[in-house]
């Protein structure tokens, strides 16, 4: 049985790195005694796979993890105690929201997710600047950003990585949907490009959605039941 879970990362735990987050999952899964499958070999590892890394310091209501269980030991994922026990075993601020059986014919989170949606807020991201900044960038053919990767500074055109931009429904936060193909654009890099002069370290970042596309249909990896988000209402095509 292969599971896909959606979970949140909110509050103090946002300062836990992606790598440390993986360790927290391993401990939580041992605490709830789920029959997680392990790799073969000298150092067996639980078969877990994570999606797009969340930058340390960013929050999220749309994190995903794939967990392979041992074949032949079905668990009842409709049983609410599975979600509750896991949330209890995870730190405060990490809560499992959705648990589903994963279609093994579909790709991994890393290959399936085509874009992610973010909300940015903080000093310098002022209400009256949101719409003009979005319009300026969306109207441009290219957006050159100097950034550093593996110690190398280079200038990239990040415009193709930006799928949509605009204010959220409250008009106070900047919502961005970014493509995940290629050399991804970090929310902090976008913030600096959209609002020149800000200190991007001060910007609060929240990932709200991760999207997949199949046969031209764009949908969330796993939707939260009964929640209509700002992005669904306003931004997406």
């Amino acid at each position, binding site marked *: 049985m292969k599971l896909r879970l959606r979970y949140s990362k909110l509050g103090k735990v946002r300062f836990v790195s992606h790598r440390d987050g993986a360790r927290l999952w391993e401990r939580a899964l041992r605490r709830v*005694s789920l029959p997680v499958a392990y790799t073969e070999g000298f150092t067996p590892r639980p078969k877990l796979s994570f999606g797009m890394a969340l930058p340390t310091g960013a929050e999220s209501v749309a994190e995903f993890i794939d967990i392979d269980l041992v074949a032949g*030991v079905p668990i009842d994922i409709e049983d609410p105690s599975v979600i509750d026990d896991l949330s209890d075993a995870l730190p405060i601020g990490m809560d499992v929201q959705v648990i589903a059986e994963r279609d093994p014919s579909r790709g991994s989170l890393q290959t399936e997710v085509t874009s992610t949606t973010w909300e940015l807020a903080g000093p310098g991201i002022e209400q009256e600047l949101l719409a003009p900044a979005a319009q300026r960038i969306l109207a441009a053919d290219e957006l050159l950003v100097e950034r550093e990767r593996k110690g190398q500074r280079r200038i990239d055109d990040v415009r193709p990585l930006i799928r949509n931009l605009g204010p959220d429904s409250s008009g106070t936060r900047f919502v961005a949907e970014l493509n995940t193909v290629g050399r991804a654009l970090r929310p902090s890099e976008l913030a600096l490009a959209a609002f020149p002069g800000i200190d991007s370290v001060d910007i609060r970042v929240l990932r709200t959605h991760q999207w997949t596309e199949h046969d031209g249909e764009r949908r969330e990896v796993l939707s939260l039941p009964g929640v209509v988000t700002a992005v669904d209402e306003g931004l997406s095509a």
Partner: protein
Amino acid sequence: MSSLWPQIEPLLPRVQKPARYIGCEDGMASPQHGGGRVAWLLAYPDTYEVGLPNQGLQILYEILNERTDAVAERTYAPWPDLEVELRRAGLPLFSVDTHRSANDFDILAFNLSAELVYTNVLNMMDLAGTPVRAAERGDDDQFVIIGGHAAFNPEPLAHFIDAAVLGEGEEVVGEITEIVHTWIAEGRNDRHSLLRHLSLVPGVYVPSMYDVTYAEWVDGGQLLAVEPIYTDIPPTVDKRTVADLGDWPYPKSPLAPLTEVVHDRLSVEVFRGCTRGCRFCQAGMITRPVRERPAEQVRTMIADGLKRTGYGEVSLTSLSTADFSEIEPVVRGVLADQEAVAPRGPDGTSIGCGTTINLPSLRVDAFTVGLAGEVNSGRRSGLTFAPEAGTWRLRTVINKLITEEDLYGAVESAFEQGWTRMKLYFLIGLPTETDADTLAIAELAKNCVKIGKKYTSRASVTVSLGGFVPKAHTPFQWFGQNTEAEFQRKIDLLREATRRAHGVNLKWHDAAASTAEGVASRGDRRVGRVIERVWRAGGTFQEWGEHFDLALWADAFDAEGMSLEWYAHRHRDEDEVLPWAHLAAGLHNDFLWDDWQAALAESGLEDCRWTPCYDCGVCTGYGIEHVVASPMAPAGGSQGTGQDLTRGAEVPVHLTINAHDRAVPVVGSAR
């Protein structure tokens, strides 16, 4: 009295590893302040990664939070990047539990495992907003207390602390709490009277209640006396020791951090104390007698701890874990317990990678290797032994009685069972050491590689060299430490001797750092002035290679007109008043001196658990006893120690068969 989190949170994206500062661990208490509770801030003067696993701090954290008259939170040294941000923002040191200002706490209690952290202690006091000099603190300022192994010579910190606790803290923290609680209830008046009151608590040393006199500054101005200023203050402060570890099954809720720390696994303490009698080892001398935890309690603590934390690895901690009487049944029991609770596959077999049992501080013998093999079914990469010295002669001097046959037998057994890498720990700069002793380290390593090559072409041996720093309350407390240059010369000798030795890797600790450690270890109150200068010159995190700077220490000695050489490298005489002479770990001074003379005469001393008592002073002086489950030497013990155990049928004078365990025959033959 509220959380500083809203002010601290914006700083964290600006620093490395921000998860160090968020708390939120599994096992964290829910500290309830107010109601007249005495608020303790338990501080570890090093990074979160180093300090979080500290068992002493976790134990006291739980014991205090279980009390109705106390509350305890934790803090660790902020890395320099956060320190800069805190100072710039005008924010104080804070607790990681509820992010309260350190100033909201009545007691700032430091756990000192080592000496190079002393400058961090001052820095954290300063960040807490507490005057660093105790004499400048008033009734509204908090109390600064230190504990831990380094507190057995607290004199270098005497001017900065209000009190030092000698020995084990489980009981005494409650006694201190009660006194401070009353003092607060009575209106926080007259700090001096409180300190005087505290100094009457056994195990609590209040430096300001003692006057120190020195000779004129000739030949360094030797210490003449340390005497109490009131007649009711004890002239000697004795350490505290809990009689039975079985009464203290802590930590019950081990802390599992959200970020990786140095010992990232469950730890369960199986016994305290060690009577192997290694003469260089301060821990073995100051933690006597041996008190084993009941085997059943060890099993329960491991099962509960693994369940609570989700760790897949447990470390059985002590100073020599293979000496635990029931190590084999406990290890087998733990493996069986974990097998029983593991999730099952469709065929009913357990799934997962099992539980790894970590046995640190192993003896050097084949029995131990067999034990390590039993608990380590997965990959066998590295195994560590500590022969400490290169020749049998020098090992008799330090009383680490391992024969070459023991070492080669252990190494052979390890390679045979699939390990490919050995790590061997040695000390350099030991008393009576000659270059022949030093060079013998290279020979031992080469021979170990040769043995390994019989089993695997990948066989390698890493030799790790530490510069020996004499410590208080040990037989080597009179020995003048090697100079930095001498350490370096010996390191270079070994580099040359192993240069072409395929499979031998050499590593060594910074010789300069050993010099500073030596000064702080055996210093008197005057060394405090040096420590304060090093701190004021920016010398924090001195135990971190990239931050250590011996020049800061040398400059501070010069500025004070004091001699580093006098403190670090001078041999002491029998009649010299040592700075810690008024502080007792229970060992008779005569015993220590005789053992020092025995060392110089290359004469070993047997382990008193299995041979008659030689009266070091601890059991007889404190009316406490060894608590062990078996009066017999452990299997392999004779091979492991090279000791003459022909007298093994005699039961030591002071020996309590652990009441928690099943009956064990009191009289038996070791043969």
